[in-house]
């Protein structure tokens, strides 16, 4: 293995410059990895990433600059690498690796695959494709100050899915709709609400009280009875949330009173739910207007890190609804907005709605900074961790290629010996 170091052994150096490798992901790890690969002598690289460049990437994804924001990561990564290594042969795909075009044949065309991903679904997918194609895979990941690298080789090591991984947290519908007990439940509810009002409506993202909640019924027959609504809720049952909102002209006060007063009062009628839980306390718009700004928020902290009082979040709700309403109108008929944590009014809306709901359900409210973390599934990230991990990945890659050569050498020698022996 010592022969790895400059100069690499002739065989390994040849293997490095001739082999074809696939890099899945051109983000934090991907940028560092591409740089290490070309500077180590890898020549034939294909890189794939479905994402575009965002400002918050620039603190670590060094192949991108401010002028590249909005462009394809894979494409810009390729162009930047070619600037310092013009002889590299790089193919970039602005696409999802889960696209069926990238079939087993595609994977078989590589000697090595390296993951630089940030989500489990894609990792599982690539793992299976590499097993099917019998191509070695180097898996890796980073989060904050932590990182890891693993080599996955069919028949030699366990694969990515051999060990059960903790499942992604999802919450039952009735927790989101009726009985939230943690801030995250309220944040998920607020994101659903955004989609119901401004985005693509999804039957799995209901926000109104769930009358079919099994916990709510004293007797099973009651569930059916409750399903035929009370006066206050009658209209909403037969009309979608979006249609109703539209009919009010997205009036923030009407929305506020339905979501944070009427719906809560309805929940209160499902009294079995509140036998052992603290009951929610409905809000009233008129009362909110009376509330001034909380004097405690006057400090030097970043605006985002302050926690407002319920009056402040009511006003934020109103402003963000008005802004989103015009965004929607500008887009024309049948338009839909897509929630984006980096779109300020969208983020304001979720911050306000989630906090109002938290307050109603007696939870401590959270700053915009914290809500953004949870709503946007933000993982802190820095350049150093990615640099360390990418260094490790290429070392492992060289070992994998080197052991392949050793194996080949053994096979070759056998062939040579055999004819001689048979004489």
């Amino acid at each position, binding site marked *: 293995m010592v022969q790895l*170091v400059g100069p690499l052994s002739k065989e390994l150096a040849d293997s490095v410059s001739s082999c074809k490798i696939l890099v899945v992901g051109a983000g934090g790890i991907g940028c560092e990895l591409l740089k290490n690969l070309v*500077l180590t002598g890898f020549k034939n690289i294909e890189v794939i990433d479905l994402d575009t460049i965002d400002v918050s990437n*620039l603190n670590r994804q060094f192949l991108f600059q401010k002028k590249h924001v909005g462009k394809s990561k894979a494409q810009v990564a390729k162009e930047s690498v070619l600037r310092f290594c013009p002889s590299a042969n790089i193919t970039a795909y602005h696409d999802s690796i889960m696209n069926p075009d990238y079939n087993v044949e595609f994977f078989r065309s590589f000697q090595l695959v390296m993951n630089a991903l940030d989500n489990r679904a894609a990792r599982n997918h690539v793992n299976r494709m590499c097993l099917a194609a019998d191509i070695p895979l180097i898996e890796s990941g980073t989060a904050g100050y932590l990182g890891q690298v693993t080599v996955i080789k069919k028949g030699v090591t366990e694969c990515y899915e051999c060990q059960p991984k903790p499942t992604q947290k999802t919450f039952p519908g009735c927790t989101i709709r009726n009985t939230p007990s943690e801030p995250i439940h309220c944040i998920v509810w607020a994101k659903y609400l955004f989609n119901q009002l401004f985005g693509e409506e999804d039957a799995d993202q209901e926000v109104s009280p769930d009358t079919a909640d099994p916990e709510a019924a004293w007797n099973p027959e009651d569930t059916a009875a409750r399903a035929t609504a009370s006066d206050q809720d009658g209209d909403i049952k037969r009309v979608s949330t979006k249609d109703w909102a539209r009919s009010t002209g997205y009036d923030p006060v009407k929305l506020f009173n339905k979501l944070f007063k009427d719906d809560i009062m309805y929940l209160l009628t499902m009294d079995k739910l509140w036998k052992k839980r603290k009951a929610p306390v409905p809000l009233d718009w008129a009362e909110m207007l009376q509330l001034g700004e909380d004097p405690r928020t006057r400090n030097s902290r970043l605006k985002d890190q302050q926690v407002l009082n319920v009056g402040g979040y009511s006003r934020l709700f109103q402003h963000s609804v008005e802004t989103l309403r015009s965004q929607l109108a500008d887009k024309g008929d049948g338009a839909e907005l897509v929630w984006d944590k980096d779109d300020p009014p969208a983020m304001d809306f979720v911050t306000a709605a989630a906090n109002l709901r938290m307050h109603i359900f007696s939870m401590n409210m959270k700053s915009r900074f914290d809500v953004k973390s949870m709503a946007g599934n933000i993982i802190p990230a820095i*350049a150093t961790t990615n640099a360390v991990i990418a260094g490790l990945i290429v*070392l492992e890659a060289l070992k994998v290629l080197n052991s392949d050569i050793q194996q080949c050498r053994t096979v070759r020698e056998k062939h040579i010996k055999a004819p001689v022996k048979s004489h």
Partner: protein
Amino acid sequence: NMSEQKTNKEQRYDRQLRLWGDHGQEALENAHTCLLNASATGTEILKNLILPGIGAFTIVDGHKVTGEDVGNKAQAATEFLQELNSDVSGNFVEESPDKLLDNDPEFFHRFSLVIGVQLPESTCQRLGAVLWSAGVPFLVCRTYGLVGYMRLVVKEHTVVESHPDNALEDLRLDQPFTELRNHISSYHLDSMDKKHNCQLPKNYKEKEVFRQLIRDGIRKNENGAPEEEENFDEAIKNVNTALNPTKISSTVDDIFNCVQCENITSQTSAFWMMARGVRDFVQNEGNGSLPVRGTIPDMIADSDKFINLQNVYREKALQDAAVVSKHIQSHLQAVGKVINTNKIQFLHCAAFLRVVRCRSLAEEYSTDTFQKDTITSCMDSPDSEMVLYLMLRSVDRFYQQHSRYPGVYNYQVEEDISKLKLCVNSLLQEHGLSVNVKDDYVHEFCRYGAAEPHTVASFLGGAAAQEAIKLITHQFVPFNNTFIYNAMSQTSATFQL
């Protein structure tokens, strides 16, 4: 425009602000670092400091760029690196470190941190001496074949925010302050009798008794069966960690006993001022305890009760902080000084104050003061990373004798093996070290040919930059003082040499 700039920065640095906060970012943006040698490792380190927004950097490199682009390495590197972040100012000096030390050693006094990469031993020693007396932290880094090496040289580095893993809460359940006691009395739980002389449960048996006490407190329904109460379950689960005795760690005690804490002068830093203020508090109003931290963990409770409880701790913490502040102010007045009182805001970290003191390079290298015992005992395992340290010292010796490193050209590899072996032996002999350095390592280091493979440079670049960020932001505890990375076995070790 100022505010637009601020927002842009917040967006760009969002993912790292979530790690070290705005004050950490501010410290980074006020720092000016010097890099000696824009080699692969050096530029990797700088890249990792420029991307997060270090204030300024200066590259010192006398080498010329060979090949098509004839010019100066320092300038070329500066221009490329500058592209990574327009917020950062880059400078360069086309001069070898040795020349600079000859002509203008005070050049180095202006930096927050000096990073020396791929430096020969003699240059390292000279620079080390200059920086040691100037009180400038010095980080030595080296990529040598499949080995990475870092050495931190700083006389005294203080850390308020050490961010310990698994820190215990400061609940004061064993010594409730008056306001806490009063608050608890306002709850109507059936009283528990005082059987244990006001001592905390100490062992498993006693803790089980305590848990049972809690269980007995659970309300029962009409049938006499205990209700399912989440808050009681949580209490029982937390018996082990919530009942830790309130006491000051020996690390903090040592800090209190330092001469810097005792003798307050007009030169005293903010850290020692704070330590002294806290010590005064401990010895007076605190009755042997630190100021209350003021934070409590999330717990199952209704919102109002939780906020009230939180406020009891918070108010006490503020009270205690005001007392500490008064002590600090009186010291400041006595020496005629004013300090930015923002630095006093980290009193909740009082229990985790740390001071790192590294031995100088002179102490490490002198045959009188080198760490003979450490080296000898590590070498009981002949494949310990310590052997790589001895090999690096040996190739330095080779360089001194032959003005080159072993095995740089293929034809040299074989003949250099015996020459390098001589260097190893003389090193061991001079230091009276009877340890065994296997021939394998001598051969390996010849084959390395002093190469700087980019992939090892990338790893070391990340590790070194992270230590630099720790030093600059004074968050987390830097290593003390030698780090060795073995890229073959993917292992590493730290030693105090």
